[in-house]
């Protein structure tokens, strides 16, 4: 038997408790993202590539090109705004594998004042709702650095489970650290929703 939602209620897919998903004017978005990229702590929490600096202009061109390439059924990206003050605080990207109905997610909260206050958790909850309810995902996956426990806890709160760690996967500051891999299945997410509704 396929797990089903006990009560079906059409929810606003783009609005959570603390954040909403938006699309921004490319110029404004590029300016914010270029500013976040200069924060190397943010970069190293979010990514495993070396920190790199690109101009507003270049970032804007990427955003525009993505849009001009047209609808791609496997690629979704959102900006994240805080509901409280409508400030642009981060971004979220989804890669849907249409063959295996799996979504990979990447998220970044670039505004440091909004770290550790539940905004990332809320954005991940929205992301799961969107992935399971709109994209038809059977599972959602992500990777996180072992040195980023704040993100790990946020993902756990949203419903992700740890599925393993690739040992000494990356190198930062001359030290090797593990990468953690997490996933949540459709059934698990639906059970969470049913539990919350009861």
């Amino acid at each position, binding site marked *: 038997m396929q797990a089903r939602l006990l009560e079906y209620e059409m929810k606003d897919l783009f609005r959570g408790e603390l954040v909403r998903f938006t699309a921004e004017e490319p110029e404004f978005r590029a300016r914010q993202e270029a500013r976040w990229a200069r924060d190397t702590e943010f970069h190293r929490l979010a990514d495993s590539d070396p920190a790199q600096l690109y101009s507003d202009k270049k970032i804007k061109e990427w955003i525009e090109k993505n849009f001009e390439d047209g609808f791609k059924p496997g690629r979704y990206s959102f900006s994240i705004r805080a509901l409280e003050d409508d400030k642009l605080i981060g971004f979220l990207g989804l890669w849907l594998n249409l063959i295996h109905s*799996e979504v990979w997610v990447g998220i970044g909260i670039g505004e440091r004042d909004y770290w550790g206050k539940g905004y990332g958790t809320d954005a991940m909850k929205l992301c799961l709702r969107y992935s399971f309810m709109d994209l038809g995902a059977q599972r959602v996956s992500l990777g996180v650095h072992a040195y980023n426990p704040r993100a790990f806890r946020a993902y756990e709160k949203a419903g992700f489970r740890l599925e393993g760690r690739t040992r000494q*996967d*990356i190198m930062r500051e001359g030290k090797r650290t593990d990468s953690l891999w997490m996933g949540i299945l459709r059934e698990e997410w639906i059970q969470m929703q049913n539990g919350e509704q009861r």
Partner: protein
Amino acid sequence: MFDIATQLFEGTDIRFGPIDYDKDPEVESRWTHNAEFMRMYDVNPARPLAAVMVKKQYEKLEKKMEEEKNLYHFMIRAKADDRLIGTAEIQRIEWTNSNGQIRIGIGSTEDRCKGYGTQALQMLLRFAFAELNLFRVSANVPEYNEGALALLRKFHFVEEVRRRQALDRDGRRWDLLVFGLLRDEWRGQAQPAASRDEVPAPSADEVSALSGDEGA
């Protein structure tokens, strides 16, 4: 002493070589018509390719090798008659993190159970650790690929991640396993039997492919 005299691309029964644009496309085209092989080799849907399409893929592959410099791809050939028996590659190399993903396929049924996969993996690991200076390599394998699982365990790869129900095939979902091997673990181990005679009788159908490539 540097052991630079031992050839990186020469094994006991096999060798690594570059693509042969005249002969290889036809052989690899035959492999792509074997759905069983393709489902072991790739998590993307199996689809047959004509030789001319395989040739185009080779061109794209070599362009990628040249431009992105994070991919090493070898054709596995039998030393005896130089025929193509498989492919071996290290992909998605992150140079600043010294890691990469390995992938091996033995294309035709008659070349399985002969220890070619073992020899190819042995050569590929030496290349990864002693030539590319990687610190670790990973391999992604669907849980149903028993040949690949046996081969990795022979080389003491550690099962690190079980991505639950990540694959959809034959009307059900399967786990995708991620294995890892560190340079020190590779250095410490006695080399597994490489020659034909020493290879133990394969319990499952010996490796046809070691992979689970997820595409880009």
